């Protein structure tokens, strides 16, 4: 029986370093190649020795697919391709291809220049790695080789995020990457057609959450920011440079405009300008409303939001600062956090998920005394707020996607084991399909049942569909033909044609019986009766 095998090298019952190996009909595909933000040692990258112990990556893998530009989905790519060694094709969408190298370079700088690590990938390696990237359009069918094809679907989540269908013959797998089933202020909702894959590999970050309406969350967010600013406090919003940041900027910009507020809003330096520029140039990837109005008013040109300077952090008076990175694990957001944490007037709003081990995760789990570098203890007096703005599908959204795609099996990754367990049961109950949740390094095997495509001669097909007094499409018909198998071609033809093609003559088999009939009637009447009987 043909089978599909799935082995997560990362993101198996975990969030971080997404990397999933899929073997389908003799093809091996790697989905995402991310890093883990909670680790600084070997565990930050997926364990590629799983593959390399048996040979070279390039020989094993037919292609690599990157779903979007977040580092937990592409952060290990230069290490994988340039240091471990992979020369095959890497597929991603255009915006991902544009933004991915910038985030990688940023990541490299923090790791090498600030933390002083050696044996990390170099700028040149990022460039060489990106040369192996092939950009794909949405819905384009990319023929990786004669048998393997892939197709990207819109995933929302961040600019350029995509879900991918991987297909060989009539077997197929859909990998969602990270996705969002509700449109937000700058992106549209994920969409897929009823493609009925053998397996759907879905993220499950918010497996147990059903979020209240977006409007409520937005109102809540604005109220909290407004109140803090009104009483003269400072608001820190740790974000990643691309994605949520733009959505929240649009939100605050329109609010400031409407309320005529004067407190300054800053965006931490670095990517801001550039990031907004990417949104302007890839506006076709944003939501309908922004696309429609961009000629008159480009939503990514902000009036109230200005570039942040490190010195501003000590300015008196209220302000709002968006600072990177989003989990308070390094960089500018952490610096500002240390400065402001001691004042109870201030507030930090975490708008997204935080990985275990990060400062963000610690304060969200209620820790108020943090041990910083050099054994220093930082006491957190500022208010800590969590607001789920990260654009992942919630439980409802995941179920909705399953309903859309109608998979035969579901496999969950990119989530916490406990929550997955809950969702797994829900999926199995509601859709009556098997649901899997392998841990890293654990292989799940799914049996498939592909049908066999055959060429049928048009003559035979027409004859068979035309038989019967009234052709009734709903009523099944028994048909009879001969399947000719030659080399790798299968053809179904009428028996007559099969004989002819094989150069064989038909063998006639006839019977003649003597039948005695006792009938008092006249001879020709008897004949007529027999004839009528046979005819009937």
């Amino acid at each position, binding site marked *: 029986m043909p089978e599909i095998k799935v082995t997560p090298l990362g993101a198996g019952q975990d969030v971080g370093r997404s990397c999933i190996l899929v073997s389908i009909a003799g093809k091996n595909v790697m989905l995402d190649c991310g890093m883990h933000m909670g680790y600084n040692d070997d565990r930050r990258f997926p364990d590629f020795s799983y593959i390399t112990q048996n040979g070279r990556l390039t020989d094993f893998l037919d292609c690599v697919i990157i779903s979007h530009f977040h580092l937990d989905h592409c952060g290990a790519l230069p290490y994988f391709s340039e240091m471990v060694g992979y020369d095959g094709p890497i597929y991603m969408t255009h915006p991902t291809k544009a933004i991915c190298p910038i985030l990688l370079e940023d990541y490299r700088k923090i790791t090498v220049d600030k933390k002083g690590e050696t044996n990390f990938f170099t700028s040149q390696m990022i460039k060489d790695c990106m040369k192996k990237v092939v950009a794909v359009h949405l819905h384009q069918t990319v023929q990786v080789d004669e048998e393997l094809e892939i197709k990207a679907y819109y995933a929302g989540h961040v600019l350029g995020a995509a879900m991918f269908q991987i297909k060989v013959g009539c077997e197929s797998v859909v990998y969602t990457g990270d996705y969002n089933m509700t449109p937000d202020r700058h992106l549209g909702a994920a969409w897929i057609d009823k493609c009925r894959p053998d397996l759907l590999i879905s993220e499950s970050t918010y497996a147990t959450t059903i979020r209240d309406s977006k409007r409520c969350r937005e109102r809540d967010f604005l109220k909290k920011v407004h109140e803090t600013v009104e009483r003269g406090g400072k608001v820190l919003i740790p974000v990643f440079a691309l994605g949520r940041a733009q959505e929240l900027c649009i939100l605050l910009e329109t609010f400031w405009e409407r309320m005529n507020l004067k407190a300054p809003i800053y965006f931490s330096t670095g990517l801001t300008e550039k990031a907004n520029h990417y949104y302007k140039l890839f506006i076709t990837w944003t939501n309908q409303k922004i696309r429609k109005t961009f000629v008159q008013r480009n939503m990514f040109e902000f009036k109230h939001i200005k570039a942040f300077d490190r010195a501003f952090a000590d300015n008196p008076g209220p302000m709002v600062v968006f600072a990177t990175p989003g989990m308070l694990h390094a960089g500018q957001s952490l610096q500002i956090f240390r400065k402001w944490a001691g004042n109870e007037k201030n507030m930090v709003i975490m708008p997204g998920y935080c990985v275990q081990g990060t400062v963000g995760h610690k304060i969200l789990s209620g820790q108020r005394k943090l041990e910083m570098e050099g054994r220093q203890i930082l006491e957190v007096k500022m208010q800590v707020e969590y607001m789920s703005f990260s654009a992942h599908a919630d439980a409802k959204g995941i179920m909705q996607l399953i309903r859309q795609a109608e998979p035969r099996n579901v496999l969950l990754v990119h989530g916490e084991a406990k929550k997955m367990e809950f969702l797994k049961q829900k999926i199995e109950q509601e859709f009556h399909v098997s649901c899997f949740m392998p841990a890293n390094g654990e292989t799940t095997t799914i049996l498939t049942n592909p049908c066999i495509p055959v060429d049928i001669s048009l003559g035979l097909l027409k004859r068979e569909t035309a038989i019967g007094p009234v052709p009734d499409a709903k009523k099944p018909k028994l048909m009879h033909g001969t399947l000719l198998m030659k080399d790798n071609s299968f053809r179904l033809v009428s028996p007559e044609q099969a004989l002819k093609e094989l150069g064989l003559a*038909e063998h006639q*088999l006839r019977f003649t019986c003597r039948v005695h009939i006792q009938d008092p009637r006249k001879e020709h009447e008897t004949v007529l009766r027999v004839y009528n009987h046979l005819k009937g």
Partner: protein
Amino acid sequence: FFQYCLSGHPTLPCNVLKFKSTTIMLDCGLDMTSTLNFLPLPLVQSPRLSKLPGWILKDGSTFLDKELKECSGHVFVDSVPEFCLPETELLDLSTVDVILISNYHCMMALPYITEYTGFTGTVYATEPTVQIGRLLMEELVNSIERVPKAQSASMWKNKEVQRLLPAPLKDAVEVSMWRKCYTMPEVNAALSKIQLVGYSQKIELFGAVQVTPLSSGYALGSSNWIIQSHYEKVSYVSGSSLLTTHPQPMDQASLKNSDVLILTGLTQIPTANPDGMVGEFCSNLAMTVRNGGNVLVPCYPSGVIYDLLECLYQYIDSAGLSNVPFYFISPVANSSLEFSQIFAEWLCHNKQTKVYLPEPPFPHAELIQTNKLKHYPSIHGDFSNDFKQPCVVFTGHPSLRFGDVVHFMELWGKSSLNTVIFTEPDFSYLDALAPYQPLAMKCVYCPIDTRLNFIQVSKLLKEVQPLHVVCPEQYTQPPPTQSHRTDLMIDCQPPAMSYRRAEVLTLPYKRRYEKIEIMPDLADSLVPLEIKPGISLATVSAVLHTKDNKHVLQLPPKPPQPPASKKRKRVSDDVPECKSLKPLLSGSIPVDQFVQTLEKHGFSDVKVEDTAKGHIVLLQEAETLIQLEEDSTHIICDNDEPLRVKLRDLVLKFLQKF
């Protein structure tokens, strides 16, 4: 397989293909050359145009002098300009299932088709095609609607009257079918029927046909189309280019192995080299401006203008033109410039790389930022305040019959310092200029048409090797004005099939196979037998399911269990109609082995006689006679069913069933 040809214009095609059970319209181009027969629509009252004398017949009758005006020996219709639509009578257009659009120039007739024919299908086009197509339509509607004309001439269209008119009016075809411009609500309704597609996206039509757009290299989002089933492939090539301008390069490889290749939209100026023309354009522009004159460039609001602006961007500083203002005037100028910057994925490699930096792909962003290029929705408003001469003006429409260009022709026509440079190849420049004669202004003709020329076509055809080529008749003979140039026609083997307007072609191929899927459990039950080395066969008896044009073979259901009770159960619908199967037989029966087998099964008195064609086997006790021949067996026996069945089974042992 039929092709209905609704347009005679080779670069503005409109064909309908009947392919398997689907009806597919390929493009719906609008022939606007008809407008050349009309007087220009001036934005500002033009004394010159309003004083043109009415046209008087040779016999002195003046009944047409309100409708027809004479200018420098040419006669023009004084009415709202009208367009020549694709043929609407050749087939019932409400039966069209889908319309495939190849580029934004080839969709201008869309509102006439989708809004007036009962069309209920879907239109497929790429996103840039739709966005820029919308801009072209908006500009067209706007430039005609803002100059309301009281008069709508129709008398001249009368067949008896038209006969009396001078050329070219006399020879204009199908004038009764000419229509006024559509309106914006109609445009919006038409565009709402479009479904966006991306290159290499496979779109299933009713499960029977798959269509796929491919990059054609001619314009932003321009595409060729593959229309295929599992066994037949038609390539539709329309408006393609191999030159490196701004769009993504043409995808040639995917056109291979076509049964039929429909070829339209070749260059309209096969003798002009686009690169040379751009050079001439720049030098003429510079010369005029240096001499203190103005330059007028009649153009469409999208397309070649992006390339011209890019050339000028590189050229103006070296030519000392940095202080000359460039104006781009169109109701959609701003939109066109903005839209051009957001289609990174549809651009050539160089421009894509710029977006990755991130920088705008087209340098006109910088021209606008540095105030060298200014754009206005029309000559009214801001423009009249900013207007400085000498200057360069890009504006439409290239036919010179409507749009802001009419104003500049009237304004600058009288001075020989000024130059009008024609770059768009769709209209004869002499015809376009006719209603402005006499004209002092210099006229330069630099047509830039990047579409395939005949050398490129023959290379392409050699490369992709279609079995048959179908093209407009114009491509199968040299241009009428250059009848000696046999190199300016399509040369291929077998010769191309040509079509003309209102013709129906039968495409030369025949389907022989269809795809069917065998379910795995059925496949497992099959018993293949090797008949010849490398060839195996298996007889298949299965249930055929057909849904959405997809065929599936399933294992026949097991015969129903005999009902326990005597009540007859209703025959369920799932049980197929079982007609008794009579398999075909093949092979011959070796007489010696057959006799042995008979004896083994209890026939002790077997006698064999030789005949001319084979043998006769006699079973005396059973009073049975079996004639064995090479390809037939005849059993003559008494009315004894068990005996008959026994003999049948013994005979079948030696034969192969089909």
